[in-house]
């Protein structure tokens, strides 16, 4: 142990997850007897989690880390060890704070969004929130991949519960099913991956000398990357490099599902059927973040495989662009946010794939704040609009809802990546990493970079289209003219997050640091660079360099120039997008300009027919094959069974006809039988010789 004095924070760290679990139990069993139907318990629990998380973070800041097993599921002397444990290092401590903060704020917001609106099923709702927080927090501090998988799955369950909260309608249960199924499809690969990692390394712990990234690293280093047995590890007939790549891809399946990357992103827009605070929770801090967090968590493993990294980067970049383009035409405010979420997580993936570990974590953090903010802001608007979500029915809410407006604006600026809001810093850093590694010898990354860059334009455009349509101009409906009042529980979270969205970027001002030569201004970089050896930024840098061949290039040989250029381009593009939106939608009665896109708009409105083809695949290869199997089963397999019985009975009926009732026939048959018997046995015994 690093410091026994601080160990107490770590001793109570499990409570970070346990508290929400307790609130889940309370809300579930006692919720309907409680004053706020379980909300208070949830708020208290997540508040407690937040405090504890901060304490843990402070402790970690003091240089201490923690990596201990706390509960063993089964005792297995000679084989794989299945346990739950705590891994508290800078990354997880940071994430704990983010998650518990967002969760706390979402609980608070729910008081206004759910309780005050007189929704039914509140205990169930708060139980779901509690379970969700519990799962995510436990996922975050998991010390091994098995535990990650466990809580990864639980997160999926919670999303199902909460997305389908309004189960009496048709759409939410369907959306919930879709969310669970699509992510389950991804989790399938994750599951194979976890099992395969167990089978390969015998362990799935993240950190320490016996952790699987370390073992993999040693195996690759030891074998020189060329085939053969990798240091006693079973690689199932593949070379270690190839096998580790496969493992990486398998786990990545889960990531793509949960983080809604192409092509498994289709569940996420549908998931907007859930209550808006839930959307905030899912998109900002819990479920969707889980995927990216997982990659960051086991980055030491991914860093070993250039192929995996490239794919991550490429998928990320593509998703960023792809989703952003769809967000352009949406009418529903939550839909716009949904696609923006996909897009933003695409950036994070791009960052991870491009070797920008810090950048990705940075964006994960800033995005958590501003996306939570945007969703809660949207939630506030929706409350005000009496649960209407079509932006074309809004307009002019700026004057009537000032606090939500400014908070929302802060979030939007961050989302669009406008200096100096949080999103600018983090997104810029991702693009920067992609660029420098791209030109530094991994040209594939440049593709991701370009897509990411293009997406910046779209992001700027749709963000401001959303802001303008919602808050600016003249109110377009009666409801928009007379919005619902908002309570403190709605406004407080908005205010907190608005401030964070504006300022969170300052923790890692890379361009500033580079230009001014102030390494210390990159606080986050420094934060992530200490802690358990093997889980540090520096180590990851070495790994990506050694195994993936990532080297830092620079435009015209100047690092400063590159930084400036990169930041400048992305800012310019963001402003261009935003400006375009301003041009088109700033008037008091903006027109539906996207109509002019014609077929393209139809294509985008229909999300590139992604749902259609996935449904088609599911129906053809799922239901279709199932129907065929069923018919096969009924007719052939069961038919054979019934056929046997029918043939038996039929032959039985024939056989009994021998008994004709005429005794002479009996005598004949009897004699015949005797003759046959005589001949058979006689021939066998050779009597006639």
């Amino acid at each position, binding site marked *: 142990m690093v410091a026994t004095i601080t160990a107490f924070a770590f001793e109570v760290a499990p409570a970070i997850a346990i508290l929400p679990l307790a609130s889940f139990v309370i809300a579930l069993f006692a919720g309907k007897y409680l004053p706020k139907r379980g909300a208070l318990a949830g708020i208290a629990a997540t508040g407690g989690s937040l405090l504890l998380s901060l304490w843990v973070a402070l402790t970690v800041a003091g240089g201490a880390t923690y990596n201990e097993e706390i509960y063993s599921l089964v005792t297995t002397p000679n084989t794989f060890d299945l346990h739950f444990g705590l891994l508290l290092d800078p990354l997880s401590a940071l994430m704990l704070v983010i998650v518990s903060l967002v969760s706390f704020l979402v609980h608070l917001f729910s008081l206004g969004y759910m309780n005050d609106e007189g929704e039914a099923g509140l205990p169930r709702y708060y139980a779901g929130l509690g379970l969700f927080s519990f799962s995510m927090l436990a996922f975050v501090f998991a010390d091994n991949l098995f535990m990650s998988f466990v809580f990864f799955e639980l997160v999926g369950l919670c999303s199902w519960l909460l997305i389908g909260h309004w189960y009496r309608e048709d759409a939410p249960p369907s959306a919930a099913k879709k969310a669970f199924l699509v992510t389950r499809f991804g989790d399938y690969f994750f599951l194979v991956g976890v099992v395969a990692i167990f089978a390969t390394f015998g362990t799935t712990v993240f950190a320490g000398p016996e952790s699987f990234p370390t073992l993999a690293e040693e195996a690759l280093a030891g074998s020189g990357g060329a085939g053969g047995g990798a240091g006693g590890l079973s690689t199932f007939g593949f070379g270690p490099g190839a096998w580790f790549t496969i493992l990486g891809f398998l786990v990545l399946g889960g990531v793509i599902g949960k983080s809604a990357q192409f092509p498994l992103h289709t569940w996420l827009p549908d998931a907007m059927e859930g209550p808006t605070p839930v959307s905030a929770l899912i998109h900002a801090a819990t479920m969707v973040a889980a995927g990216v967090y997982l990659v960051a968590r086991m980055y030491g493993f991914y860093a070993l495989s250039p192929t995996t990294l490239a794919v991550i980067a490429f998928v990320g970049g593509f998703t960023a662009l792809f989703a952003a383009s769809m967000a352009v035409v949406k009418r529903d405010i939550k839909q716009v946010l949904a696609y923006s979420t996909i897009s933003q997580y695409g950036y994070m993936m791009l960052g991870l794939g491009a070797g920008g570990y810090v950048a990705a974590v940075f964006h994960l953090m800033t995005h958590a704040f501003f996306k939570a903010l945007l969703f809660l802001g949207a939630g506030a608007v929706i409350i005000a609009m009496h649960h209407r979500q079509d932006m074309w029915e809004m307009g002019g809410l700026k004057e009537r809802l000032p606090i939500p407006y400014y908070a929302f604006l802060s979030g939007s600026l961050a989302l669009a990546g406008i200096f100096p809001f949080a999103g600018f810093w983090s997104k810029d850093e991702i693009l920067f990493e992609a660029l420098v590694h791209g030109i530094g010898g991994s040209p594939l990354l440049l593709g991701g970079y370009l897509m990411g860059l293009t997406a910046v334009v779209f992001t700027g455009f749709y963000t401001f289209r959303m802001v303008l349509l919602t808050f600016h101009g003249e109110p377009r409906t009666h409801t928009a003219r007379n919005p619902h009042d908002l309570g403190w529980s709605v406004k407080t979270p908005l205010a907190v997050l608005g401030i964070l969205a504006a300022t969170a970027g300052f923790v890692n001002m890379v361009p500033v640091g580079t230009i001014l030569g102030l390494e210390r201004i990159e606080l986050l970089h420094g934060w992530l660079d200490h802690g358990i050896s093997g889980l540090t930024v520096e180590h990851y840098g070495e790994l990506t360099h050694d195994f993936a061949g990532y080297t830092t290039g620079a435009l015209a040989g100047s690092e400063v120039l590159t930084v400036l250029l990169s930041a400048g381009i992305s800012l310019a593009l963001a402003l261009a997008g935003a400006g375009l939106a301003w041009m088109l939608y700033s008037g008091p009665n903006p027109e539906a300009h996207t109509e002019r896109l014609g077929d393209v708009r139809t294509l985008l409105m229909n999300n590139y027919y992604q749902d259609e083809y996935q449904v088609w695949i599911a129906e053809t290869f799922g239901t279709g094959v199932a129907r065929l199997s069923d018919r096969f089963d009924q007719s052939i397999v069961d038919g054979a069974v019934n056929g046997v019985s029918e043939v038996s009975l039929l032959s039985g009926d024939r056989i009994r006809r021998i008994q004709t009732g005429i005794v002479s026939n009996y005598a*004949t048959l009897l*004699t015949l039988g005797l*003759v046959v018997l*005589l001949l058979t046995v*006689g021939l066998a015994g050779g*009597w*006639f*010789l």
Partner: protein
Amino acid sequence: MPTRPHLNLGSHLLPGLVALALFAVLAAVFLTSSFGEAAGFPTDVSITANIGYALIDLQRLGTIPTDGFLAALLIIAVVLDAALDGAVMLAKREGDEKLIGIESTRTDGGRPRDSAAGGTDSGSVSDTASDTRTGTNTEEAN
């Protein structure tokens, strides 16, 4: 029922072929087997007496070897007794027809009779009739 035998060649003779086949088999077996010279009986002994001894297990008194048949003799006495008893029971014509037939249909599973026929006055005629009916019913049912 034919009153006198007359030659009737037809398909009903076909089963007879089986008997011929059996004969063929038997003949084939018998003619291929070889026996030694017959031992024969001594000419100066009364075979009848010996048979008599054998019947009551006194074959030691005789000279020709034989098994004792006392047990068989006792048993066959009982057999004849049984046959007689059975034959008489079957052949006897009931003077009093009243008592029979009450359960006459039982082996048909006790098909319900006319309620009037129950118990007291079910004469043989009605019984035969009901049996005939049962029989035909059976045929129809099958």
